[in-house]
């Protein structure tokens, strides 16, 4: 996507949205890695 955030007042929300992408990504990575550790027991 090439669109950019233009008007003032939405920049902080845009930055927060990027931060939220990172937070949910890290949270999901934590959940998946913890689950995979259990899964290895099944096939280990």
């Amino acid at each position: 996507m090439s669109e950019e955030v233009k008007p003032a007042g939405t920049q902080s929300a845009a930055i927060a949205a990027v931060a939220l992408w990172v937070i949910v990504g890290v949270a999901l990575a934590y959940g998946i890695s913890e689950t995979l550790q259990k899964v290895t027991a099944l096939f280990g």
Partner: protein
Amino acid sequence: MPSILDRERTVAPPGYNRWLVPPAALAVHLSIGEVYAFSVFKGPLVTHFDSSLTAIGVVFSIAIVMLGLSAAFGGTWVERNGPRKAMVVSALCWVSGFLVASLGVTTNQLWLVYLGYGVIGGIGLGIGYISPVSTLIKWFPDRPGLATGLAIMGFGGGALVASPLTSELLGRYADAPEDAIAPTMLTLAAIYAVMMALGAWVIRVPAADWAPKGYTSASAVVAAARRPGLGVGGPADMSANQAIRTPQFWLLWTILFCNVTAGIGILEQAAPMIQDFFADVDATEAAGFVGLLSLCNMAGRFVWSTTSDTIGRKPIYAIYLGVGAALYLVLSLAGTSSVGLFVVTACVILSFYGGGFATIPAYLKDLFGGFQVGAIHGRLLTAWSAAGIAGPLVVNAVADAQIADGKEGADLYTLSFTIMVGIMVVGFIANALVRSIGAPAAKPAASAEAEVKTES
């Protein structure tokens, strides 16, 4: 003057990047998805209240029933007031639910746990579940399956995150897990308050005249006409009250009910089931199997829902229900032949289960338009509540009857799986009966393209 929570204050300015919106939905769904990790609290709660598993299991059941009811009755309110206000209400209910439940634990009042986590938290679940769905569909009218898959994947992922986190907290706050329930709930409440508040802040709705580059409603008709059976092309923008008077709504209700009931058939009994099928599978390996099912449930929500944008909603449900029925048959007839076959088959079934949840809002949008898709989705979620009660009842009643007949091991599940095949076939037939509302989808591609040229 509009409040900061009102829809008007969340309209995105021109040029706003639509990829900044999904994390708001994910933050809310990851938070409320904790409900599927409630089982981690079960053991400690049973010990703390010196109660039965059934009495504690009621907490989860109340929450799921309240999810369906609040989504059904709150859907129109959510559409009218916009996603930010809905997310804030959801956060207040969800977090308050934890606070009241932890008060119940501290004061030894189980009814407060029912009221808090079950009733108040359940309302937060329902409002939170539908709050971002119609917004995302409006941001991604060209790829509604991807949009809803992204959001609803978060609900599946919520348990993946909450389960190990809750176990960790229960272990850290006290020597015995039953003494650590209240502080664990308070910690989770604080985390979810922050996550959901961030989501509410970040969420934006598109302006009424906004559309992705190169997208027009006519181009959607062309795309639909190129994919026969997609189910796109209803009379644009039906209200929720109009939609529930159509047979299509109740066919989709039946499809969701069948899909969820069949999925619960495995989910409800996953750990004991694999141990009954294979005597050499121990408790740790069974826990790994449950974890793997959760992963497939989450992945299916994104992968299959996104795939439905390409192959169409009706064909993908034919796969979920038709192939799903065949896979249940495989489990029933050859499930004991190898662990690998059993695990792979169950994983695919669970991926279809997740996919069924995530694709249904896009199916609704195809049929009824985007105007009140959130409210319509809310009403459809009563199928989830009904399946949440019927599924475990069927599975447990059948298992009890088989035990009473002296059966054991894999034989305990043969009848259950056969019933699940039947349920999937009913859903398959319901899907086959779904027809577009109105004529646009029936138009040949050439005619639809001619319309586009005329309009441009």
